[in-house]
């Protein structure tokens, strides 16, 4: 972990943070500082307004003919996955994810075997686990590779929020990846590097945003393209 940053260092980096171009451990350390410093947060917020204003300077252009109807057609397409599931089904899914995260975090294992002994009892344990980290809920999403599912990404909403990846054995997509968070408002935030495959069956990281803001987790290969992707369609299953 990078050494903690003081206000002066963070203020030096504030413009890059506001523009979303700060990188790596330097950025992580600055975000940790921001979480407890209202003055530096205010500066970054003001500079973010500058970034917003700059984008408005791009000259408006008439889009190609038919653009409007194509977008409206896209609006009408059904979402890739149902946003609402029956409550009992959703509860079982969340409870399963919760138990899986706990097991994965405890064992550090690449695969998770889960047996439930009733939703009610599991719910009590689930709540007890969440209370340890001031968390509210867990999420899970399939991690998709070039040839289908290669693992699972578990997300924990708390302070802080974090994600953990568990991989199936012998995946094709081995190597070093840049991990990228895509937020629901379209930002792309770096989450460090990950080495996956081989003996590395798990990977975890602290999110720079609340779990509810996470739309996609991407593992970007050396060609700059996302090799592994997990999409979180639901921000908060209890909404």
């Amino acid at each position, binding site marked *: 972990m990078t050494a903690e940053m003081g206000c002066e260092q963070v203020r030096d980096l504030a413009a890059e943070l506001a*523009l979303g171009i700060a990188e790596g451990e330097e950025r992580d350390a600055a975000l940790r500082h921001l979480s407890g410093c209202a003055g530096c947060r205010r500066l970054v917020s003001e500079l973010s307004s500058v970034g917003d204003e700059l984008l408005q300077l791009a000259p*408006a252009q008439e889009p190609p003919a038919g*653009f409007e109807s194509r*977008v409206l057609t896209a609006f009408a397409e059904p979402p890739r996955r149902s946003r609402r599931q029956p409550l009992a089904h959703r509860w079982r899914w969340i409870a399963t994810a919760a138990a899986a995260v706990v097991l994965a975090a405890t064992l550090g294992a690449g695969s998770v075997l889960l047996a439930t002994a009733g939703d009610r009892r599991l719910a009590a344990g689930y709540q007890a686990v969440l209370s340890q980290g001031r968390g509210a809920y867990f999420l899970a999403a399939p991690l998709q590779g070039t040839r289908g599912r290669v693992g699972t990404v578990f997300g924990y909403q708390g302070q802080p929020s974090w994600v953990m990846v568990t991989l199936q054995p012998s995946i094709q997509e081995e190597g070093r990846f840049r991990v990228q968070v895509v937020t629901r408002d379209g930002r792309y935030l770096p989450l460090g590097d990950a080495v996956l495959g081989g003996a590395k069956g798990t990977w975890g990281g602290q999110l720079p945003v609340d779990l509810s803001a996470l739309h996609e987790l991407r593992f970007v290969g050396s060609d700059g393209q996302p090799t592994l992707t997990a999409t979180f369609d639901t921000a908060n299953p209890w909404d």
Partner: protein
Amino acid sequence: MALPVGPLGAMGVAVVRKLSDESLLAGLGSGDPDAAADFLRRFQRRVFGLTLSILRDRAAAEEAAQESFVRAWRHASAYDPRRGTVAAWLLTIARNVSINMLPTRRFDPIDPELIVTLEARRPLEDRTEAQVVDSELLREPLARLPGDQRRALVLAAFYGFTAREISELDGVPLGTVKTRIRSAMLKLRAQLRVSDDR
């Protein structure tokens, strides 16, 4: 279209056209077809203009603009007015989508000067003169920045180049690039503060 008719639709297009950006976004998120169409008409030229400025390819820019609107539709409930205007939120989405579509960092960026030396835009039919003036607040201050600061800032703000990437692109020390970006941003922030005080 499969979108259900919602409360805004019942008000009629003439009324919808006068709604605020926030109201239209709320209508878009709730599936109101008239609000969706009006939201699209209100912002499509600005969104496409930005994606085209970044990608410089009309087909790619159209794809990016479409993806931007779809994300806005899907995540309309995530918009927080305390963090900026609807236009700023939407253009940030468009910027991020476009940056992600740039092939690689081998990409040769447009001369950043072009973005700031273009003539001030004429008012669009769906924007008032005041709205245009508001969005032009930074054009002159940006043009007055030293050229090296302006270039670094535009590469970072529009194309998402990190300081390290700008350093490599321009063959300038990393610390110098960071200073240029910081100085430029602080000057423009001061300009925005002056505008707020008026």
